[in-house]
């Protein structure tokens, strides 16, 4: 498994992170080291072993669909970098 600076940039794009050329190189290097280390897992035969996504035997935790008090709009917008009309304002999504 060899991650190139190009691969690093692609991954960064997926994660909405921006990398400079230098960072892309550096991250590719570190990622390669870490991925090399985790290859260790392949020493284990895990065929027939169920994956654990969650340690507790609970699933489908739901509640009754009743309306309950939620955060007031003023609180929701309190930390907004830019807001107006009870909404978060962002640059245009569509041209």
């Amino acid at each position, binding site marked *: 498994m060899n991650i190139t600076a190009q691969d690093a940039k692609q991954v960064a794009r997926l994660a909405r992170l921006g990398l400079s050329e230098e960072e892309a190189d550096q991250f590719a290097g570190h990622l390669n080291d*870490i991925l090399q280390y985790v*290859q260790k897992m392949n020493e284990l035969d895990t065929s027939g072993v169920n994956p654990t996504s969650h340690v507790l035997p609970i699933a489908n935790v739901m509640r009754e669909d009743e309306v309950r008090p939620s955060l007031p709009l003023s609180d929701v917008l309190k930390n907004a970098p830019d807001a107006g009309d009870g909404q978060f304002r962002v640059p245009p999504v569509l041209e």
Partner: protein
Amino acid sequence: MSLLNQSLSTLQTLLDKKEIKPTDLLEESLAAISRVDGQVRAFLTVDEEGARAAAAGLDRELESGNGARGPLFGLPAGIKDNISTEGLRTTCASRFLENFVPVYDATVMNRLKAAQSVTVGKLNMDEFAMGSSNENSAFFATRNPWNPEYVPGGSSGGSAAAVAAGEVYFALGSDTGGSIRQPAAYCGVVGLKPTYGLVSRYGLVAFASSLDQIGPLAKNVEDAAHVLQAIAGYDPMDSTSANVAIPDYRQALTGDIRGLRIAVPREYMGEGVAEEVRARVQEALRVFESLGAVVEEVSMPHTEYATAAYYIIACCEASSNLSRFDGVRYGRRAEAGSLEELYVKSRNEGFGKEVKRRIMLGTFALSSGYFDAYYLKAQRVRTLVKRDFEQVFEKYDLIAGPTTPTTAFRLGEKTDDPLTMYLNDILTIPVNLAGVPAISVPCGFSGGLPVGLQLIGKPFGEAELLRAAHAYQQSTDHHLKRPQLAGEGGDAR
């Protein structure tokens, strides 16, 4: 002698007799912070005004003397800065949240309020809980109170240091791969990670949702048990919260551990562990035997694979959890002409290197074509690690070993290579994968720095875990030692 150094029962008595009031405890805490935090640098935010108002309110309650007091009445506490405190800046030690003020309290904060402790401020940490040294804080590094050139550990480094330096009576931290226990070991204090699901994660800024837990750091096991009692319990606001009965942890501290069966995995005592650390742990095991416990060697063969599985799982979950930091609704927003640019620039400016690295690793391991080889594989390895614990617990009550392979290291010593840093957690990580509870207690020193003993319990077996740790502390005095800080008189505190 300092009030903050007194036992809980002594403080209860002094409060009963009205010889002290909560403001006295708080002022001591603030004075200690003022005296030593310039060196220790545990705090990101000190809320003098809020804490004084809270303490004054408790003074009035004490005065009006209706008797009933919360179990943590008046105790000054520090809170790791990834736990939401309404109205009090919460940064996760990240530039992204540098000015973020939560609009609600985490459930644990509500529980502390009901128990009537006093929140003094927010404690430094590795950014978004990613790190083992507190050097990843975007603001500054915390120092180990035992030696300021050494790290306090991480990611709850501020929490451990503030307790060790006598700045607060107790602290809350969070633990995903060892972030409570490892700094507790490095700083010579007690740190407990509860069973996954015991303590609500509502209001804890998520790093890895299947691993994170909030827990107490304190100067002794008794105090830790009291804090755990206050914060544990089912919370409908956390869908991963366990609906189990909570025992009385304080009643569990009987001092009697005769017949307790303790397993010591040979993989925890191998050549990766420093000789003196191993020696301190072996001395501790002899103490357990002298108290009537049975100590035997076992094998947990999947131990060496746990770190690999952990870094994949934790980074994958983190990459998802940290996608909420997009500059739209809160936190840092960069100047941008398009929405895409807004996301990228805000995240780039707001996140430190280690955070970016882990997001990248997680994104990669979850991406199409790699998901099976990395994420799914790691989850299967997790099952094997969990099974090791289940098998040992069929015959034994507790598992013991060192909390960390070495004592604290120097600032800057491990920052060049992320992998070297990751290996500090090899003894703590398996515990999070299995979801079981574990505690680190001071068990001696090596080269002037504290060594931690880790005890691991069965799921929801905190009572037994605390009983064993407490019994050990009744027979030893390592936890009574205090670091000497410049301007302080060492043990004469």
